[in-house]
């Protein structure tokens, strides 16, 4: 066990844990932020996605050693931003949420895409969300929601 310090949603936090513990477990169990979900636990489903120094990663694959001194943003932190509001609105309008388990990860992945590419085409949207599995919606409503934001940006 050792003290590990990093920035979480803009605030410095220190947790007593091990180098090999998963970031996902520290976020959910030690720090009680449960917006980040665990689906597959092996990098396939995207339910656990967070930003690490601004880049989207699967927190189920990241050991705490790789988080020391770095910045983590979870869905709870992202939900306080303007970019989030736009995505939330589009998801609601297009009915892109059913059970909601994939949604935090899907929203994080949507923002990661739009930050890089404000006007993605359908192919780019599909490719960018390829790391996010949804068991409910069949994806079409999600793709539509993302397309809607992309098209609105254009106006």
């Amino acid at each position, binding site marked *: 066990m050792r003290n590990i310090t990093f920035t979480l949603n803009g605030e410095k936090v220190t947790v007593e844990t091990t*180098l090999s513990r*998963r970031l996902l477990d520290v976020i*959910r169990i030690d720090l009680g932020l449960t917006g980040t979900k665990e689906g597959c636990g092996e990098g396939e489903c995207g339910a656990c996605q967070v930003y*690490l120094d601004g880049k989207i990663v699967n927190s189920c694959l990241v050991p705490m050693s790789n988080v020391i001194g770095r910045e983590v943003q979870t869905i709870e932190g992202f939900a306080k931003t303007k970019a989030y509001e736009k995505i939330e609105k589009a998801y609601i309008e297009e009915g892109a949420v059913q059970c909601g388990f994939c949604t935090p990860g899907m929203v994080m992945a949507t923002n990661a895409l739009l930050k890089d590419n404000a006007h993605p085409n359908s192919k780019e949207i599909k490719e960018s969300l*390829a790391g996010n599995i949804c068991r409910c919606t069949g994806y079409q409503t999600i793709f539509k929601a993302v397309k809607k934001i992309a098209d609105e940006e254009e106006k």
Partner: protein
Amino acid sequence: MLNHIRPKNVTELLEALDKQYYHVFAGGTDLMIRKRQWQGAERKFDKDIAFISHLDELNGIEETTDSYIIKTLVTQAEMTKSDILPEYLKTPFSQMANIAIRNIATVGGNVVNAATVGDSIPVLMALDAKLVLKNIYGERTLEIDEFIQGKYKTVKKDNEILEKIIIPKVEFDGYRYKKLGQRKAGILSKLSIFIVYKKDNDDLTDIRIAIGAVNEIPIRLKEEEKKLIETKDINRYLDKLSSAINSKDDNRSTKNYREQISKRLVRKYLEEIMQGGI
């Protein structure tokens, strides 16, 4: 009790590796999964681990007059976004896994892991890449095909790390890359084909063809590439390719499927390339 370490620099890492066995941990996209446990439980690592992803000395892409130098910790995402690297090198990395994985998976990890489905390996083989391995006593430079001995098998010693990959610069006139898997992205290859070539007017002067995920080690037939340039005989090349395929059926695909599809795609690309297209 396991003793995981996070060395301050490369020298400290190499000293530690020389004293006892540590499993080197870079991005962890292979290692975390191999040690999969139930939800919320500590990963069940059974060996001491040396974490290296924070070591800046092992990170960065550089170029010299004749080579590209890729340090081991460069991620797949950094490969695809590089201003230095040519398209033929960026494209295969842009098709690996998905964005979130590419942000943490390292090039070095993909090579050292030496999986049959490691998509960087055929590409690096076709480009005659060299690997620099380092231990506390010094370094050695190996061709990638000397380094990889089989599925998950390399000649790396326990006290060595991969430091960097050296890729000779060649002004190719064109390339082809095709990866077949079950889904668009994020899926292990059933088969991948990488071709780079040079032409003088319409005449083929250099061609390298590597086929990944079929045999345990990617297939590259250097002698047959030379014959292909001399004779332009595509059928002969494809026959040699057939004899080189020795894969077994597995849960990714069958041998027959792989053989038929590889030959069909390679034929298509070679015909395009030789008929004067780019």
